Structure formats: C-alpha cells, structure tokens
C-alpha cells in the first residue's frame, strides 16, 4: 500500500506562484506550506458586509406584497447571501495587491498569503454561479437575472472598471449594494414595481455619504493604494459638500414610499426621523475642515450611524408591513 504524503514547501509555493493570475501581487512568503483553513474561505465572503446584504434582502422579501413558502424564501435569501459572498471573494482576488497596501485590508487571507489566488477566484465563481442557478431553478428566473447582474456589476463594473479609474466609483458602484432588497422583493412578486425600485434608490443615495465618511478618515490608506476615492481625487471640501447633497436628497427619497402609499405611517414617520438625524449628522461633516490629529469624530459618528440607519429604516418597513397584514394599522 502506498502512503499518501503531503506536498512539500517547494511544491506548494511553485504551484501558488505558477497559478497566480496577478503577476504584480507580491504576496508574503509563507513560512509553512499549509493548505488554506476553512476560515480563510469564510473570510473571503466578507461576512460583515453580508450581514447588511442579508438583512436588507430579508426586509425586501418580507415587505413585498404576496406570500412565499418559507423554504423558497429561505432559499432566496441564502442565494442572495452566497452570491454576495462570491462577489466579495472575486473582489478580494482582484484587489489582492491593493489590499496588501492598506492597513484596513492587510489582514485579509490573500495579502497574508494564507490562500492561493486561484483558489479565491474559483471559490468566488463557484459561489456566485451556484447561487444564481439555484435562485433561477428554485425561486424565480427574474430574481436570478438581477442576482447575476448584481454580481457582474460589483465585480466587473465596480471592482475592475470604475474603482481604479474614477472618484465616482462608489456612487455608481453603490448600486451593487442596493440590489438585495430589490431581489428579495422580486423573489416574492416576480415583477419589478415602483416600491422595490425606491428601496434600491434609497440604498443607492445612502451609499456615498456612508462610504465617504469612512474614506475621509482612511484617506492616507487609499492614497497609498492609488485608489482615486473622492477625498483623494476631488479633495476633502468637495467630498464633504457632496455628502451633504446626497444626505439632503436621501430625506425626501426615504419618505417617498409612504407618500405614494406603498407603506404606512410607521415607516413614513420612522424614515422622516431617521433621515432627519442622518442629515443633522452630515451637516457638521459637510461644513467642517479637518485638521491633523482631530480624531475625525464627526465622520466616525456619521459612519456608525449610517449603518444603524439602514438597519432601523428597513426594520421599520417590515414592521409596517407586518402590522398592516395583522390588521393593527390601516
């Protein structure tokens, strides 16, 4: 009987180098030729981002008129989450060299060299492809079409094309993150109506002030990685003013679902208060100038609140729908 032996260090490193799709990536040499841990694959899916994706998709699904079998609803959310995870893995595969230059992303599996680039790419393709296929076969082909487009939009349009080329990257690329509630809604109704489009528009409008609040305080990181984020390309003043404009537009947009009769007052009043606070927190960010060592507190506060904002806003949307269905409110 022949014993199966583990490949040695030279063999594994030779495979990794030969298989690398990004010639310019200088991955740190591994001291031990270990196979990637399953946690490394899990980290490729950007679990923190996935939480928001799952939540907004679930809210879109629960707020949609009509009903869906729990098993099919679970499958739809699972497909959206896994497709987002696959898109995240493809994003990390493509940006391994950029991630290695930024403090915030240096600890990811590819810059650390704990996973082979080809493994990350194949894992991303497998997750995305399988999710779209299962969504189509088990849930709805229109939802599957939007899911496939959202992955394409995030990976190709945003990651590969826009992000390294234009400071408007996050504005247009933000659309990728706005798809989950739209897809969740379509999974139930099988059609695109004004309400899911409005939910899409709300996240689209929310993304620039949310992301630029972060970009303002990690500006040196993006500069080091040569990514033309708005604060680096157009300057702080312009970024701050634009954030203010987007926040001001978000307020009327967020209450539109209520104004057109798509939701009840619970959502409408919640949206008004939440967007009012969002705007109030953006005003100091929009009007001030940062100085060295000031801690960027208003920006950090806005970033933290922006995440809470989306959770509570979409939570209110579902609560409104559930109470209306139960006959508690009109």
């Amino acid at each position, binding site marked *: 009987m022949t014993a199966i032996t*583990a490949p*040695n*260090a030279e063999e594994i490193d030779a495979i990794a180098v030969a298989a690398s799709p990004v010639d310019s990536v200088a991955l740190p040499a591994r001291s*031990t*030729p*270990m*196979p*990637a841990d*399953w946690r490394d694959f899990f980290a490729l899916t950007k679990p923190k981002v996935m939480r928001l994706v799952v939540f907004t998709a679930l809210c879109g699904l629960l707020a949609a008129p009509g009903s869906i079998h729990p098993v*099919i609803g679970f499958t739809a959310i699972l497909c959206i989450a896994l497709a987002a995870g696959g898109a995240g893995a493809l994003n990390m595969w493509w940006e391994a060299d950029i991630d290695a230059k930024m403090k915030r992303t240096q600890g990811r599996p590819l810059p650390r060299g704990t996973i082979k680039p080809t493994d990350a790419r194949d894992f991303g393709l497998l997750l995305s492809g399988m999710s779209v296929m299962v969504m189509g076969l088990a849930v709805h082909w229109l939802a599957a079409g939007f899911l496939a487009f959202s992955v394409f939009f995030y990976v190709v349009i945003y990651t590969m094309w826009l992000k390294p080329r234009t400071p408007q990257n996050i504005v247009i690329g933000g659309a990728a993150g706005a798809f989950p509630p739209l897809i969740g809604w379509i999974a139930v109704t099988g059609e695109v109506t004004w309400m899911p489009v409005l939910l899409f528009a709300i996240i689209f409008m929310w993304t620039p002030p949310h992301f630029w609040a972060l970009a303002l305080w990690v500006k040196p990181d993006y500069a080091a990685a040569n990514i033309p984020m708005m604060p680096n390309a157009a300057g702080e003043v312009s970024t701050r003013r634009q954030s203010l404009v987007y926040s001001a537009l978000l307020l009327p947009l967020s209450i539109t679902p209520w104004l057109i009769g798509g939701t009840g007052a619970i959502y409408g009043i919640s949206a008004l208060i939440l967007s009012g606070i969002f705007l109030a927190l953006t005003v100091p960010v929009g009007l001030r100038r940062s100085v060295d060592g000031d801690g960027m507190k208003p920006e950090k506060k806005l970033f933290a609140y922006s995440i809470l904002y989306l959770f509570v806003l979409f939570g209110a949307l579902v609560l409104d729908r559930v109470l209306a269905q139960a006959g508690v409110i009109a």
Partner: protein
Amino acid sequence: MTPEEEQEYRRRQKARNIVIGLVLLGMVVLFYAITIVRIGEQ
C-alpha cells in the same frame, strides 16, 4: 515538514473535509425540501 507542521496540515485538511461534508449535506436537505415544496404546489 516537521511533525508539528504535518499535524497542523492534517488538522486543516480534516477541518476542511468536515466543512465540505456539512455543506453538501445541507445542500441535499435544501434541494429535497425545495423539491417537496414545488411538487406540493402542482
């Protein structure tokens, strides 16, 4: 590869195999449930 490294290598392999096994099992259960639901709708 030292004995400690080989042990770690085997541990990671085993952990990955277990995770893949659980994922496959989950898929079998999910596809079975989807099939039952879809058949029930017809």
